[in-house]
């Protein structure tokens, strides 16, 4: 493990920002710290950078305990949420700053700065000031500035939060490609699950100062370890009054259950050709257009579940009575999660995409 945290605790007044945080990050990977706001993810990042110090626990980089190493000596690149570009310096001087501080010879600085500026695609903008750049360009300068002194670890705090949606997707792909080319170990903080799932090699899910789960995106998505993760990832519906669906009568020992939209099929009454014995009847409560699909909320046995429906299929209407087929449900017993299949359709080889 290249970066390691062991039982790290941190409190601000009576607010516990980190509680027994432990994890390890392999070299060269892009890691996403994912959690809702106030879950302590930025605090973890700032402690690794040395901008905050933990109350207890160890932070190790490359096997060395760095708790008492000053932030300036850790050799870490940091990209701030608001970029924190030096507003009275040009793009060139911003990128050159770290090298000048290190007293690198002038010709080397020039070479490196021009290389970085070319790398982030901002040729010809060396003489501009931050206020003359767009959000995406500022982001690129911040990235070039953080990487110019050749850090061995790059930390990014909500790197795309301040950028509009269209440019954001573009920048995400760009960043992933960039980090893959440079092979630099990186950790980024985000509250956006799509962002984390799309670009991270590994995701660390945080909640209330604790680590909920660590794993590759597919694992986090398919096998949530805790109720929180199951609820936080995907657009899930929470069932907290027990499961009253056909095919799930045998489920016992549950405190909570979660249904993802992709676990639910909604069909016009009477059009369901298979698994009639597994289906329930429901009434459409809400239909919202999501651009590439409809999100439909159906009330089944007094429980509202969410489903997606392709635009290709015939349109359903508000208040319509429909057939609802529930394939599987996440069931939680305390802090243990398991996936339960609909018992009435287990014998089938139906695959739902």
């Amino acid at each position, binding site marked *: 493990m290249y970066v390691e945290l062991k039982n790290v605790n941190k409190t601000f007044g009576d607010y516990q920002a980190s509680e027994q945080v432990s994890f390890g990050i392999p070299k060269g990977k892009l890691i996403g710290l994912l959690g809702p706001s106030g879950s302590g993810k930025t605090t973890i990042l700032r402690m690794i*950078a*040395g*901008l905050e110090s933990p109350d207890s626990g160890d932070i190790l980089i490359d096997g060395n305990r760095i708790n008492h190493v000053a*932030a*300036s*000596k*850790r050799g*870490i*690149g*940091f990209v*701030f949420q*608001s970029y*924190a*570009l*030096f*507003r*009275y*310096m040009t793009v060139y001087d911003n990128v050159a*700053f*770290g090298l000048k*501080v*290190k007293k690198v010879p002038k010709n080397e600085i020039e070479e490196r700065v021009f290389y970085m500026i070319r790398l982030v695609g901002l040729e010809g903008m060396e003489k501009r*000031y931050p*206020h003359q750049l767009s959000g995406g360009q500022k982001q690129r300068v911040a990235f070039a*500035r953080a990487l110019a*002194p050749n850090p061995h670890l790059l930390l990014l705090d909500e790197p795309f939060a301040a950028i509009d949606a269209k440019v954001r997707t573009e920048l995400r792909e760009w960043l992933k490609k960039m980090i893959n080319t440079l092979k630099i170990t990186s950790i980024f903080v985000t509250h956006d699950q799509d962002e984390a799932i799309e670009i991270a090699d590994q995701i660390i899910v945080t909640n209330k100062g604790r680590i909920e789960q660590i794993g590759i995106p597919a694992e986090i998505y398919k096998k949530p370890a805790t109720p929180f993760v199951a609820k936080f990832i995907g657009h899930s519906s929470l069932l907290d009054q027990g499961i009253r669906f056909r095919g799930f009568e045998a489920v016992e020992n549950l405190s909570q259950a979660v249904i993802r939209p992709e676990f639910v099929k909604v069909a016009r009454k009477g059009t369901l050709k298979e698994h009639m014995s597994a289906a329930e009847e429901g009434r459409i409560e809400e239909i919202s257009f999501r651009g590439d699909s409809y999100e439909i909320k159906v009330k089944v046995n007094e429980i509202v579940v969410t489903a997606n429906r392709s635009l290709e299929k015939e349109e359903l209407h508000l208040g319509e009575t429909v057939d609802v087929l529930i394939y599987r449900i996440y069931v939680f017993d305390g802090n243990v999660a398991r996936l339960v299949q609909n018992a009435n359709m287990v014998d089938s080889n139906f695959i739902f995409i």
Partner: protein
Amino acid sequence: MKKTSQQGRLVPRLLVIVSILFLIVMLVLPIVTVLVNALKNGWNEYAAAVSDQYTIKAMQLTLVATITAVLINTFFGLFAAWLISKFKFRGRKMLTTFLDIPFAVSPVIAGLIFFLTFGRIGWAYDILNKINFQIVFAVPGIILATIFVTMPFISREIIPVMSLQSEEEEAAALMGAKGFTIFRKVTLPHIKWALLYGIILCSARAMGEFGAVSVLSGHLRGKTNTLPLHVEILYNEYQYSQAFAVSSILVIFAIVILIVRNIVEYKGRKESEQ
């Protein structure tokens, strides 16, 4: 339609006229009076009054006191602002309040405080006497009083702008920059205009200081007389035209400072709009 637009123009015009009249009565007329009275007995007498050896001494002392006060207040003002805006510690609010005391306390009382501390009846008198250092009725007293009275100007101006910016400093620190480099390269450009503005206000106030200085000066002509004190002495001696002549020097200083102030304010605003 026509009527309302005329009415709409009437109110601002009226306000402008009232303001101009007010400024003429309160500001322009007195200043003109000073200049007219100063030149009443002809240019030669004016030149004589201004180039009188005591006037020149007083001018020198005023400049020395002003420059020293500005330098010291800039230095400590920067430190105080840095401390208050960058660190969180117990008693931070208290320190901010203490910095404002010179604004609240009457200058005469400020003078008395030093008089009672360092004067013949003060506890520090014997110690100072042993090392042969005189504060009261001497130049150090004048400088001390000026520093005290003008202390809050610079820190007050820079604390708000300094508090705004911390991520840029963190970014610089993470790249390995040391405290002074961060201050010089990141903080100073940011607070530059506020600092200059504070320095200008501080200079203007230092030059005109009368109350505290008056208590500590002892009015020794050519030794501990600043320009405002010199004006008072001349006035009390019924040398009106000389008094007005010396006053005109202060008026000219004030006008120069006001012009510089406006330039600084304009440039600062233009830069922050970018």
